[in-house]
């Protein structure tokens, strides 16, 4: 999984600072740039498309621990 690898690295590097100031909010990251922090996910995504256009970028909630999304049925081939 190489998609958004740079953005995930940027997120990890800056996580301690982000947690201190904005835990629970959503950060917008494009490559190594932190482009903003938003109260909700859709606001961050809309800002990302407005600023960067239709390119990959990362919107991620600022949390100490990432909780996986669960699927109890076997419909996914992963």
């Amino acid at each position: 999984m190489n998609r958004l690898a740079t953005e995930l690295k940027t997120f990890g590097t800056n996580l301690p600072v982000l947690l201190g100031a904005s835990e629970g909010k959503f950060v917008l990251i494009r490559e190594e740039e932190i482009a903003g922090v938003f109260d909700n996910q859709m606001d961050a995504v809309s800002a990302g498309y407005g600023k960067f256009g239709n390119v990959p970028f990362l919107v991620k909630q600022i949390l100490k621990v990432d909780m996986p999304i669960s699927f109890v049925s076997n419909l996914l081939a992963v």
Partner: protein
Amino acid sequence: MPSFAVQLPNLQALGPLVDIRVLVGTPVEQALQKAGTPVPPPVAVKAMIDTGASGSVIDPNTAKQLGLQPVGIVYISTPSSVNVPCPQYVVRLLFPNNVIIEAFAIEAPMQGQQIQCLIGRDVLALGVLVYTGYMNQFSFSL
């Protein structure tokens, strides 16, 4: 109240399947229009309402047809895997009767070829799902 109902020959055997169309999300469409880029046409898929899915899913081919770019990475756990990273996109889901929902969809491959989309609890959280088993019918209202 926007709603749709689906009647199936055997709801128990087939599960709550519904034919929907997947479109790029509104902010994607706006970005494409601003750039003068054509907006991809909607992709018709067969979707299953899955109360066991905490998020909605589209298959890789649907994401490719829509030219979607990821806006996130989420980690998913299934009965056979743990913490698998998957890209996440903004899409619009167009249900029968013009019920439209803007959603974050995870890209993941499906078992078999029949289903290309799972409608998870992120969408169900927005409305009322009525499963009328003895009538082989279900409905969803926003």
